[in-house]
């Protein structure tokens, strides 16, 4: 054997060349390294989407001090006339040129496609090495064209794949090389990292051509040679000088993706200022607003410390950019509030970006920014969901489309999409795919796939099914990308044109552009991202305040709704008391069934209690087993102990949460004090937790954590528990600062519910869809709170619900036309406008003046809003239709109509029609109409359950309002039934679900018997559950009622 030749692969596409590549960028890079390649160029088709991921193994190797191969940056460019070449970035400028060319090609086409013309790159690809890839047509013309433009940096790529024509190909390319005076270079056109991915690669080809593999014929590659081949193998195929040439090209390409130079935008700095002085200026200016009595010296010290660190990192423009966006929102009176780790910063608080007062909370600035970490801070800001678009347009206008774009989200393969796509390629019948995918969707664990298949009548042991599952499994487990989509609101803003940093492409929404990198990529490269997020509750709060303002009585400013101390201020006390009784339907974050069942036990009485409450009822703490220890300790049932007694350094970390870690920051701090992690290492742990699906690097920390804790004399069991909690947190745990921000909104909404219930529910209904509860339950709750609710009526209702005065002069809710299903916004506004002139005389008058179509009139009659003219909905329909046929020629003719008097609907018909048209009824609850039948079945009204002893056997019934099967509940399902007196929560164990699957999953009106579980007191509120033992489906009792249940999985 001769000495191994060195080789650099210059042409490799990954799974980010969608429907072509069958390996992830990381797999390619790691395999190339293992095979002893010198370098690998990731050259995805007209894309840089995989470039950052390809860089990750390099970064990890560098962190642990291992030598690693070079990863070059490039792209395969396919022109619309068939010309193909690979462009590799030699320099920063070359990279910028390449990104510009890709951007141009992508922007010239619809989302997901591109159109590249020769004219677009006429001399534009300087600073790149170009490899011409012969494809058999017009070769001479292509080569001549390239040669003329890029004589100094052009190679002829020789790609030999044992297809029976290697010798011919080499010979004729040699001839070209001599004729044009160009060097030949070996390359592999790599589509997969190992030959075993051949089947998956064929599947990708099949998907690209929209036909099953079996009918792809020669569209498939004849063999698996497009993998990363061993050096010896290459040596036997290629002449040595061609292999040597790969190194020459690789040496020219010195650009690495980490060299992407990002600069903050500069226009946010005031004239005559540096960013540092301007930020300080703004902070000073804002301090009196936050601290009218003067800033406490402690806070001032923290501010100075933060400013110094920000200056050291050069992050001022980032803070200034966010402050500018927030300022814009304030000027437009758009409510907004920072969330996430930024709430740990006093500077952010001072600038008005966040609302959590640093004096009252234990903020952890390290979580946000630290001197050691070379990472960008992350500031997320929530805006009213209805007005976020204004903010987005402001950003686009201010920085221009050249410099601002939205981050991408990589949509990866999930069980359903993988089974569907692979199924399509293998020609598995659509029906079977549907059946399997559907049976997975509801709640099953993908690991139990084979079992599920048998249940739905598919044999998982046939070869085809095995291939199907195995290939789909590869896609799922490898987190293969399926396509790029648009991030919810992550903006990237740069000083120069963005398309020199990263390619920009069109989004599916018109007038939106997205970059090819997702938020993890941005984080890896340190690009500034501002999250402009949407929060429905902010819209609802603004609407509530506006309603109060318009109503006159009880108007209050947003900032004035504050916690003045439990027991010190009557309004505050009343608010917390209501929360403790779990009367929180509609209240931000603490309204769900799980939250409500915790409230009477945790009994929050301060902002900090609420912060804990918000954070604790989350999948993270529940899976980590933190909830019950916390409860017991807080109720004094269990002593608070630390592994090393009271002197334990962990005590300082956990004291404020009764010795149980609840927040992300605490997990980090434990890693620091108990396992000796540095702050940046602890943060790396947190990031690994959040991204474990992407790279599976959490495990690296397990041993490190255990070893560190062992060295500090903590028991192994304690270490294991901490690690389990870390895993449980995953991406679900809340940082304390984030929970504190949400707790503020929870308090404000609770205050409004307690003290301004009419405005609260009115605003909430107007901001729908949002939150946990359907409108019917919100309205029922409003009525229970003593608010009069008035029916929709064309003579009185606006589009939105509004406040009217009841007989005692208090606020009552007049339901709005927005609740009428099928009525457009425009029609509702026309009615509002026409009525403002004068009241409607009759249906004809209404139809004419509000320019309503026959359909719109019908919809209004359905909703019983024409009552004042017709008496009842049947007659309203009759009259409405009598109007219609004279829209055209006979528009002004007043033909006589025979008088017909139709019978009025009975109550049941009315209730059903109400629900059908508006999903709620102000008449009696359907269950009230069924009460005699329910009594015969010995079913108790839900309100009576409070009077029954714990453990009794009871029968309950009602309309199914919710089904939930949380991942943290071991397969248990929660079903909420509603009757005319209230709701009852049922706990359904898996055996019962299996036994009565049909009823449990599909029933709309259920009777259940089971045993009552009850905790609490009459004063403090009750937590009541019924553990279901058997169901009876009585959906036919309410046939015609629309499906009301909201099913969560």
């Amino acid at each position, binding site marked *: 054997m001769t000495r191994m030749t060195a080789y650099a692969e210059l042409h490799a596409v990954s799974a980010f060349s969608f429907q072509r590549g069958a390996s992830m960028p990381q797999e390619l890079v790691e395999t190339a390294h293992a095979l002893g390649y010198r370098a690998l160029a990731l050259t995805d088709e007209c894309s840089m989407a995989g470039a950052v991921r390809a860089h990750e193994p390099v970064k990890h190797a560098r962190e642990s001090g291992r030598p690693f191969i070079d990863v070059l940056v490039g792209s395969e460019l396919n022109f619309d006339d068939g010309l193909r070449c690979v462009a590799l970035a030699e320099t920063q400028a070359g990279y910028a040129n390449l990104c510009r060319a890709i951007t141009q090609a992508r922007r010239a086409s619809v989302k997901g496609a591109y159109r590249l013309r020769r004219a677009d790159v006429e001399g534009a690809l300087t600073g790149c090495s170009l490899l011409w890839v012969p494809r058999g047509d017009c070769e001479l013309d292509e080569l001549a064209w390239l040669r003329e433009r890029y004589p100094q940096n052009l190679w002829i790529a020789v790609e030999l794949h044992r297809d029976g024509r290697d010798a011919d190909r080499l010979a004729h390319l040699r001839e070209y090389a001599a004729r044009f005076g160009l060097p030949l270079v070996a390359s592999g056109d790599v589509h997969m990292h190992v030959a075993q991915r*051949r089947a998956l690669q064929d599947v990708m080809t099949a998907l690209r051509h929209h036909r099953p593999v*079996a009918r*792809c014929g020669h569209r498939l590659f004849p063999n698996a040679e497009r993998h990363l081949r061993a050096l010896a193998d290459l040596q036997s195929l290629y002449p040595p000088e061609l292999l040597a040439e790969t190194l020459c090209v690789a040496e020219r390409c010195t650009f690495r993706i980490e060299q992407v130079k990002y600069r903050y935008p500069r226009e946010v700095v005031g004239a005559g200022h540096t960013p540092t002085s301007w930020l300080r200026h703004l902070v000073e200016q804002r301090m009196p607003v936050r601290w009218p009595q003067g800033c406490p010296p402690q806070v001032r010290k923290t501010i100075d410390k933060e400013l110094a660190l920000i200056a050291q990192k050069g992050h001022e423009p980032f803070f200034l950019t966010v402050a500018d966006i927030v300022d814009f929102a304030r000027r437009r009176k758009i409510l907004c509030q920072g969330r996430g780790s930024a709430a740990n910063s006093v500077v952010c608080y001072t600038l008005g970006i966040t609302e959590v007062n640093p004096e009252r909370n234990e903020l952890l600035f390290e979580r946000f920014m630290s001197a050691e970490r070379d990472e960008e801070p992350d500031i997320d800001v929530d805006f009213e969901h209805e007005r976020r678009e204004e903010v987005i347009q402001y950003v686009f206008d201010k920085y221009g489309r050249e410099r601002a774009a939205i981050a991408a989200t990589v949509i990866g393969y999930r069980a359903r999409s993988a089974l569907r796509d692979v199924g399509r390629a293998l020609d598995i019948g659509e029906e079977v795919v549907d059946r399997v995918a559907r*049976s997975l969707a509801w709640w099953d664990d993908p690991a139990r796939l084979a079992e599920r298949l048998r249940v739905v009548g598919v044999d998982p042991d046939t070869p085809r099914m095995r291939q199907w599952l195995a290939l789909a499994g590869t896609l799922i487990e490898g987190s293969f990308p399926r396509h790029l989509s648009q991030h919810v609101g992550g903006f990237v803003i740069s000083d120069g044109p963005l398309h020199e940093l990263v390619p920009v492409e069109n989004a599916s929404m018109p007038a939106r552009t997205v970059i090819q990198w997702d938020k993890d990529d941005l984080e890896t490269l340190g690009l500034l991202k501002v999250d402009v997020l949407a929060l429905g509750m902010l819209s609802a709060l603004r609407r509530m305040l506006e309603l109060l303002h318009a109503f006159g009585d009880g108007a209050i400013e947003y900032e004035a709704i504050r916690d003045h101390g439990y027991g010190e201020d009557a309004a505050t006390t009343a608010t917390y008391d209501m929360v403790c009784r779990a009367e929180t339907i509609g209240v931000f974050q603490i309204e769900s069934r799980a939250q409500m069942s915790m409230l009477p036990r945790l009994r929050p009485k301060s902002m900090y209690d609420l912060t804990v409450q918000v954070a604790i009822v989350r999948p993270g703490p529940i899976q980590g087993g933190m909830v019950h220890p916390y409860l017991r300790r807080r109720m004094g049932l269990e002593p608070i102990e630390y592994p090393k007694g009271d002197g334990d350094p962990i005590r300082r970390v956990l004291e404020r949460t009764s010795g149980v870690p609840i927040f992300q920051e605490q997990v980090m701090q434990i890693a620091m004090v108990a396992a000796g992690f540095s702050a940046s290492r602890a943060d790396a742990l947190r990031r690994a937790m959040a991204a474990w699906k992407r790279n599976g690097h959490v495990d690296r920390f397990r041993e490190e954590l255990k070893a560190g804790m062992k060295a500090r004399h903590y028991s192994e069991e304690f270490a294991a528990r901490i690690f389990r909690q870390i895993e449980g947190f995953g991406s679900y745990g809340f940082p304390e600062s984030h929970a504190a921000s949400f707790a503020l909104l929870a308090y404000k909404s609770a205050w409004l519910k307690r003290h301004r219930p009419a405005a609260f529910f009115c605003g909430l209904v107007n901001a729908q869809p949002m939150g946990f509860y359907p409108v019917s339950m919100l309205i029922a709750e409003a009525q229970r709170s003593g608010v009069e609710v008035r029916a929709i009526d064309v003579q009185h209702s606006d589009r939105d619900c509004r406040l009217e005065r009841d007989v005692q002069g208090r606020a009552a809710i007049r339901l709005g036309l927005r609740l009428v299903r099928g009525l457009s916004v425009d029609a509702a506004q026309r009615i509002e406008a026409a009525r403002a002139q004068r009241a409607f005389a009759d249906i004809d008058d209404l139809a004419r003046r509000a320019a309503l179509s026959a359909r719109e009139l019908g919809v209004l009659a359905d909703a019983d809003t024409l009552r004042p003219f017709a008496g009842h909905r049947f007659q309203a329909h009759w009259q409405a*239709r009598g109007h219609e046929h004279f829209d055209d020629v006979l528009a002004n003719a007043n033909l006589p109509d*025979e008088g017909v008097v139709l019978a009025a609907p009975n109550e049941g018909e009315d209730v059903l029609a109400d629900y059908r048209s508006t999903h709620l009824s102000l008449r009696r609850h359907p269950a009230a109409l069924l009460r005699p039948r329910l009594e015969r079945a010995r079913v108790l009204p839900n309100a009576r359950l409070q009077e029954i002893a714990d453990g009794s056997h009871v029968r309950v019934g009602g309309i199914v309002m919710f089904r939930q099967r949380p991942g943290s509940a071991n397969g248990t399902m929660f079903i909420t039934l509603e009757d005319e007196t209230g709701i009852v929560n049922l706990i359904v164990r898996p055996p019962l679900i299996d036994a009565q699957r049909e009823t449990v999953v599909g029933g709309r009106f259920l009777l259940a018997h089971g045993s009552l579980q009850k905790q609490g007191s009459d004063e403090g509120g009750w937590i009541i559950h019924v553990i279901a033992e058997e169901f009876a489906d009585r959906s036919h009792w309410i046939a015609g009622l629309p499906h009301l249940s909201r099913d969560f999985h």
Partner: protein
Amino acid sequence: MLWLCLHFPHLPAEALGLDGPFDAVTEQHGARRWLITAAPGVAVGTPLGTALSLQPQLRARPRSVKAERAALRQLAHTCYRYGSPIHIEIRDLAELGRAPQALLWIEIAASLRLFGGYVALRDALCTELAERAYAASLAVAPSRAASALFASLGQPIALRDRAALERRLAPLPVAALPWPRMQLDVFDGMGLRRLGDLFALPRAAFARRFGSATLSALDQLRGRLAEPAEAIVPPPVFHRRFELADEIAQVEALLFPLRRLAFDLQGWLRARDAGVRSVRLVCVHAQRRRTAFTLHFGDAHRDGARLFETLRERLMRAPLAAPVRALELHADETAAADVPQHDLFDDADRGGDWTRAIERITARLGETAVWTPVPHADHRPERAMRRTGDPRDPAAHDRPRPLWLLKKPVPLPVRPPAAGTPERIESGWWSGGDRRRDYYVVEWQRARAWVFCERDSESWFLHGLWA
């Protein structure tokens, strides 16, 4: 007019030949699919997803309107003996959750006496349908619409006069009408739930609100207004029999009647401007025994001489099985003739000589012995050729392939002198036969051979030879 209506609730399944209890047929609208035939525990109209969760063993297939039409048309043809005119309709509402209605009407007023009364006619009809394994419900009424309504509701009513009809219609639910759901919802929204409620409304006010077309449809239902529709006509078939004067044992003696039949068919085809693709010749022997030959043509034609030539070749291939008493010629498959439009004269009815040569060879060697190979796009050499090609998928392949490809590769006891870069073929994992082979062209034992090494077992095979 007295209409007997047959409603076939399972026709979508029957037309596809499905008869398992868990077979069901679905209709699709956009992405949504629902059942249009019932299955155990699952009603018609159930969304497919729900149906599958209720009945996991369900096998659902999309419906084929074409197959349903064909089946219904066939049924119509059989029903001629029970009366005429005959109408058929597949009422497709194409609304989510609604099933199509396959309906067949027979006007029986005239044929009742022929059968000796309604009961006898009904029994004969039901027996025939049962034999043919079609499920149907039937009803008789003076209007087609009413008979269909009763049949689709499964009410086996037989009404003769309009007064009785009116009485029986009045209590029926409005929702049972095969009208668009939007129209039905309008009635429902006014509390008009029974047909009687509609009949009671003043006609002018009714038309003003629901349109005169709706009023007419209601009148048709009540038998007050004619229901024009196109009746089914019997299908065109060519079916000729030639009775021979004597029993004939010699093929030569059959040629005259054969020629006569062939030109009869030519005349029949010309009259219809059609061509024939396949014909069936039946020789009738003593004791009603028969010998049948089916002949296919390369193109649809109507050339009597060509027909005769082909039939003659076929008959000459083997001696007659038994003396023949009669000949029958059936045109099994007719189509628009592939005859150029500008040809006017007799010659024009001839196709190309090549086609005719092939037909003669086929007639002599047998139907399966002659075929045309076409390249097929598949990397595996043994699958790179097929008898018929997929015209949509032309295959172009320029690798060297031997003239003679062995049907089965022959294992080689010794390693052949293979050298150089092989042609590597790795393909076919999806159809059970994954091939991973390195092919070489070798000069070996005075032949040019195509050999391969199987990559998994490293054993050698001979796969083809050049001349």
